């Protein structure tokens, strides 16, 4: 882990090198942050000076120079962030949290399941897998969104599809007659793909209810709970396991997560109000 600055409380100013519009309310920042290293699945605290700080997963290619974050404009801070442009400066502290166990998946099949803006935290895994494709067996990316207009990384999804037909399988909850892809919920795609449950590692990121349904579908296919990994989302403040804002019973999501093994949270997963 390479922290941007020695003091974990102090954000380092970083320049926005490029802004890409992904959908109506989702955008990607490419940030000039040389020598910034991280593991897929980790997050940064992004600080908009004078407005506030939010935890955002890192969505880029870990082996590229530029740091990337894909952000949905959904709250006061992220809405203000949406108005920034190339050349503007934001504060970054991180990276924080646990990573996807990509090495654990080597030698077997890998199933990535994403819903909505749950794809950005899994994108670094896709980059790593494509770079070292020979290390993995069958690889699938199952991705669900609300509508065709809400699918992020549309061009990249097409490129991944060309490079490896079947890798991304997209579905949307609602569509007009012009959409030629799938319509339906993403957990249903688990039954569409052929993998060896005994040697499959699954990584899931999306709204919690979507993850619950996906876990059920994976368990029904015979994937063991210790081979299923989830990225949990909670309100994070300090990001270093001190303040307790992101407490998930025995865990702090910022420190012990966001990536957690399902068998360790299985007893909490169906419990309400935690």
């Amino acid at each position, binding site marked *: 882990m390479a922290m941007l600055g020695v003091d974990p409380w102090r954000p380092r100013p970083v320049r926005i090198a490029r802004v890409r519009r992904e959908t109506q309310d989702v955008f990607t920042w490419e940030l000039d942050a040389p020598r910034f290293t991280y593991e897929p699945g980790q997050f940064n605290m992004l600080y908009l000076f004078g407005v506030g700080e939010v935890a955002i997963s890192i969505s880029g290619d870990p082996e590229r120079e530029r740091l990337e974050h894909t952000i949905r404009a959904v709250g006061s801070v992220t809405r203000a962030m949406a108005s920034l442009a190339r050349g503007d400066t934001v504060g970054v502290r991180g990276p924080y949290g646990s990573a996807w166990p990509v090495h654990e998946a080597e030698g077997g099949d890998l199933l990535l399941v994403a*819903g909505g803006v749950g794809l950005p935290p899994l994108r670094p895994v896709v980059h790593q897998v494509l770079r070292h494709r020979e290390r993995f067996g069958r690889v699938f990316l199952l991705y669900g969104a609300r509508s065709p207009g809400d699918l992020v990384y549309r061009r990249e999804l097409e490129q991944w599809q060309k490079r490896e037909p079947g890798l991304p399988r997209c579905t949307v909850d609602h569509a007009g007659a012009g959409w030629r892809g799938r319509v339906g919920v993403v957990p249903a795609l688990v039954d569409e793909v052929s993998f060896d449950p005994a040697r499959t590692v699954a990584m899931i990121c999306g709204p919690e209810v979507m993850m619950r349904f996906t876990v059920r579908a994976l368990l029904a296919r015979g994937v063991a709970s210790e081979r299923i990994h989830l990225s949990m989302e909670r309100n994070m403040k300090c990001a270093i396991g001190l303040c307790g804002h992101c407490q998930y019973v025995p865990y702090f999501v910022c420190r012990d997560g966001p990536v957690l093994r399902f068998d360790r949270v299985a007893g909490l997963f169906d419990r309400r109000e935690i």
Partner: protein
Amino acid sequence: MEDLHRLLEDHDFLKGLSAEQTRVLVACVENRRYRRGEFLLREGQAADVFYLLRVGRVALEIDVPGRGPVQMESLGPNDAVGISSLVPPHREHLDARVVEPVVALAFDGACLRGKMQADPALGYALTARMLAEAYKRLERVRLQRLDVYAGA
């Protein structure tokens, strides 16, 4: 005939039926192909065919005045289409349009209902499969209705 029997035995929906039961069904079924844009079902028409998809994909659509056809769900290999052919009043409640060229086992609805009534064991076995299929689809619709990505 022997080919049709093998196709029936190979379809996931019918797995677990005895050889004799699938042989009885051969009398009701054809293996059909549909091109992109063709319809397996049309809303309002008599529901007289029950399909088991083998290849391809269909979109289940409902026409909404002022909006045009809205896709509710898409179905693919191993899915069943046309359950209305087995449920009174045997009328289609939506369109099923071919999105990717389809190969399907197409059962004559009246013939299939007759076989199910004549042999209660076969009738139960198929009804249990329909119920499981309907329940699976109901679960998907529940999740869709939650609109989980709205605040994600």
